[in-house]
């Protein structure tokens, strides 16, 4: 067997620390002992490669999962998934979930006093194409209150889950919207120390993907960790 290259570790400041005290839930759940550096082994440079058939063909369109149309502002969220060397992440699963336009999730523990929408589930799946591109049709999610601190509100966001080619490249993140006044006050968004990295979570309004008479476009490109050029550490 020839040595295979592993994956790069994140640049300093570009990922949140586990313990971020302003985010109260991190206090009892973040590890307190030093993390053990993991070498690259075959177990990390492999990972699940999902087949397209597991996703329904219309699962990219969250506006057509009910009997009628959901309420709210219809949007197109699209972008490209790349690695750190700008190589497209091809044919790879992308999962999203979000609140409805009133800021309510279709989840049994969401008690926010806002209406559910019988025509909106808030869950989407798709695969990137041969150039790493993905696209979802959905409804702009509402902001909603949470109990982190007095009068706390989450900015509008969509949760993203990506696998990429390996266990090493797994990423779960959140996409935000440009100009949201709540971003400055959100401990989750602000858990990312590096300003440029943090702002990369904010989508951009995009004429190119805006569909005339149908939906505004927002572009959100995602970068998964890149491959080392050197062989795995022993």
């Amino acid at each position, binding site marked *: 067997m020839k040595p295979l290259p592993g994956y790069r570790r994140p640049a300093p400041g570009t990922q949140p620390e586990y313990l971020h005290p302003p985010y109260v839930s991190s206090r009892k759940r973040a590890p307190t*002992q030093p993390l053990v550096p993991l070498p690259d082994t075959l177990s990390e440079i492999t990972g699940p490669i999902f087949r397209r058939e597991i996703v329904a063909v219309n699962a990219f369109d969250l506006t057509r999962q009910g009997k009628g149309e959901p309420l709210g502002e219809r949007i197109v969220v699209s972008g490209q998934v790349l690695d750190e060397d700008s190589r497209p992440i091809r044919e790879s699963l992308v999962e999203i*979930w979000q609140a409805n336009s009133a800021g309510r999730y279709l989840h049994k523990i*969401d008690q926010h006093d806002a209406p559910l929408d019988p025509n909106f589930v808030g869950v989407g799946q798709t695969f990137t194409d041969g150039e790493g591109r993905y696209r979802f049709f959905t409804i702009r999610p509402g902001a909603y209150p949470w109990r982190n601190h007095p009068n706390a509100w989450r900015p509008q966001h969509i949760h993203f889950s990506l696998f990429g080619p390996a266990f090493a490249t797994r990423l779960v993140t959140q996409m935000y919207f440009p100009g949201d006044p709540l971003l400055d006050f959100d401990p989750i968004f602000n858990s990312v120390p590096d300003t440029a990295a943090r702002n990369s979570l904010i989508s951009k309004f995009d004429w190119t993907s805006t569909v005339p008479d149908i939906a505004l476009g927002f572009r959100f490109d995602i970068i998964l960790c890149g491959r080392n050029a050197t062989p795995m550490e022993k």
Partner: protein
Amino acid sequence: MSGRTTPSQTVGPFFSIGFARLERTDLTQGAGADKRITIRGRVLDGDGQPVPDAVLEIWQADSDGRYAHPEDAAGLMAADKFFGFGRVSVNDKGEFRFTTIKPGSVGNPDGAPQAPHLVVSVFMRGLLRRLITRIYFSGEPGNQTDAVLARVPDQRRHTLIAHPTGGSGEILIWDIHLQGDKETAFFEY
């Protein structure tokens, strides 16, 4: 290098709506006659309280120690072969349970074989990044020479080892302690 990895953010409290479609607690499809094992346990927070909103993702090799992945054994990637992926949510009491097979010893291109193990990602509200850990098997001779276990401080190594309960050896217990005296060893990647 032209870009930097997008920052991780928490899955939040409502991830189960997004993760449900891929929930997979029985990994044994395609495993043939290999003996089934069940691994169960609890996820506990810094107060020792059960975490009712966590999800584990499992990645493992087949009983020959091969991964269904183009960089190892592309031939295993057919739909009827052992896949090796699991997604397992905890219940309201912080308990999880999944059924699988024991993986074989995993080869390493430039090192000694690794002891049989499962790699695990843990996601939950309060975790801004996933936690990465591993499940090894008690009584496995290869544990003594495993290069990853060797990096874990002696007194914490036991937190990565699943133990059989009862006589048959088919059910193994492995708990995740996020903090405290029994804190599970987590890896930096």
